[in-house]
């Protein structure tokens, strides 16, 4: 028995040869639900969206299949400002959310390790907004920031705001809303990496003549980079396409419309499907390019 196990018998050798093949079948089988899911919920809608974006409109208003590339040129030409504004707002909100979230996540994940109770309490506070609907919270901010709300009255009282000025409807309110709504998405991934940060690396750095700032720059930041990258992506991607904060029913106004609002109104109000579809694809494409450049530059490609 023991001898045949090591011998070059036909049986075992054949089994060894068959193993990789069998494994690839198993892998395929395991991937099957994922592939089905992708085809059903991503590929099919994407193809349908592309087809819609190329449709032509006949004079009587009906849409027909076609290769109307002009749709792209028209929509980008008409809504260029909104596209730029969307990315500008999204980047601004991502940066502000990062500046706010990193110290918070650092405190919860590193400094508060000695007090587990405080740590859990603060984590709950970060997650707590999720218990209330996103729409309700944004509406609440609309009330707080409204012209007769406490913030505007206080700022006017302090003469920091002119008598005719508003906050709601202005870009500042939209960026504020985006930042506020996405802070948990920024904070949690950063917290997860910082929570696992081994203090011994910081000690080693300190032992090797690095002061607090140098240690932060050379050790803490690089070791928490995966969290920063996933946090910024989780903030930037949805923020760029967001249509709630910039909606005029919420914090936005005519001067702060984002591409999400344009798509929404073209799809649902004006029923101009090709333009809405073309804008969606442009948005997706730009996000893809921005994200891949960003991920490549930050050296965390293995994250994708």
């Amino acid at each position, binding site marked *: 028995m023991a001898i045949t196990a090591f011998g070059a018998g036909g049986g075992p050798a054949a089994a060894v040869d068959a193993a990789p093949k069998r494994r690839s079948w198993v892998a395929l089988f395991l991937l099957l639900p994922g592939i089905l899911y992708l085809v059903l919920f991503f590929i099919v809608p994407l193809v349908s969206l592309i087809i819609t974006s190329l449709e032509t409109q006949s004079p009587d208003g009906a849409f027909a299949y076609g290769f109307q590339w002009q749709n792209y040129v028209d929509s980008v030409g008409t809504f260029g400002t909104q596209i730029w504004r969307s990315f500008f707002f999204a980047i601004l909100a991502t940066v502000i959310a990062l500046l706010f979230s990193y110290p918070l996540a650092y405190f919860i994940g590193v400094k508060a390790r000695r007090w587990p109770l405080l740590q859990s309490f603060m984590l709950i506070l970060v997650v707590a907004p999720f218990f209330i609907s996103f729409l309700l919270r944004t509406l609440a901010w609309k009330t707080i920031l409204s012209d007769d709300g406490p913030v505007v009255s206080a700022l006017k009282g302090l003469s920091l705001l002119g008598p005719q000025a508003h906050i709601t409807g202005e870009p500042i309110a939209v960026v504020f809303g985006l930042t506020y709504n996405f802070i948990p998405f920024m904070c949690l991934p950063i917290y997860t990496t910082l929570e696992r940060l081994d203090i011994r690396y910081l*000690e080693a750095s*300190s032992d090797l003549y690095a*002061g607090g700032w140098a240690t932060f720059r050379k050790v803490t930041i690089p070791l928490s980079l995966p969290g920063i990258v996933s946090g910024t992506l989780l903030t930037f991607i949805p923020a760029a396409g967001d249509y709630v904060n910039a909606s005029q029913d919420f914090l936005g106004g005519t001067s702060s419309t984002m591409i999400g609002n344009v798509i929404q109104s073209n799809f649902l109000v004006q029923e101009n499907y090709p333009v809405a579809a073309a804008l969606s694809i442009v948005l997706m494409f730009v996000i893809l390019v921005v994200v891949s450049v960003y991920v490549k530059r930050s050296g965390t490609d293995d994250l994708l």
Partner: protein
Amino acid sequence: MTPQNSFADSGADLELTGISKRFPGFTAIENLDLTIPAGSFFALLGPSGCGKTTTLRLVAGLEEPTTGQILIGGKDLTRTKPYQRPVNTVFQSYALFPHMTVLDNVAFGLKRRRMSDPIGKAHEALRLVELDHLAGRKPQQLSGGQQQRVALARAVVNRPALLLLDEPLGALDLKLRRQMQLELKTIQNEVGLTFVHVTHDQEEAMTMADTVAVMNKGRIEQMGAPEDLYELPHTAFVANFLGQSNLFTGPVSSSTSNSISVEVGGRRIVVPKDRAQVHDGTVTIGVRPEKLTLLTAAPANDSGENVIGPGRVIDVSFSGVSTQYVVAVPGVGDIIVFAQNMVFGPVVEVGAEVWMSWTVDHGFGLSDSPELVSAGA
């Protein structure tokens, strides 16, 4: 003090006065006083959990002492930050930065101090530990022993006035370990740096260090030159931790101006007074196994020799250069004898009746007894 951007041109002396360190509910270091002269190679030996790493962390500034002062090169650095101290550490857990290559790890300290040519110096340090060919790898791609050598290079490359080594060679095989010991000795001698070396390996401690300290339960039990520590241990702990010892406890039956006699198993064992810590009452005396001579017949009385026996050989184990015999002596206990293999094979068999003798000057008297040590544990 800002980190100087040149190498230390000599070692610094280290002085700990009245250091204690209490963790919540646990005292790790108790009232430690220690002076290590500049340029010396100091070895800290002790069982696991006795506070060796904690002592090094206090010196490096990674832990703040509860009481006491830390002086390095005559300056009180008790309250300074680790990066302000002229100290580097080879960490027991290596703590190599996982996001940097081996080379960047080694160059890290040099770059922080804005030394000239950090990369060249890092390569040089890596050559010293024979790892220059792996400079581009990440630490996770190295074996445990290779990581340990990178940790060594990362600390040594800074040529600090005081280098702390926390079991820096523990993961290396014997040959590589010997080689690294030589390298360390060379670096230390070259610049006259001060090394504090924590190790489990007593042989390493005794061959490399000028001074060895044996630590137990947060206190230094005994400190001195390796030969002194080995030949004249003061406590039962040291006698058993450094090598092996045969210990006997009995009452002092008589004493002369320069020696005491202790009753052991109906025989009188003589120990010189200057080699005994306690001169009256019940004392524990000892002798190293290699100092004993095995005799197959009762020896004639000789005032310069102590004799114990007869006993019966209950175990013989051959280990190449020497043979270890275990002899059961009624009323005394088991005694271990190391005999050099001057002839082929063991000289006596299991079951043989033997006597053991040793020169009076080879015995030592302890300040405590093994029973007290175990009772205190």
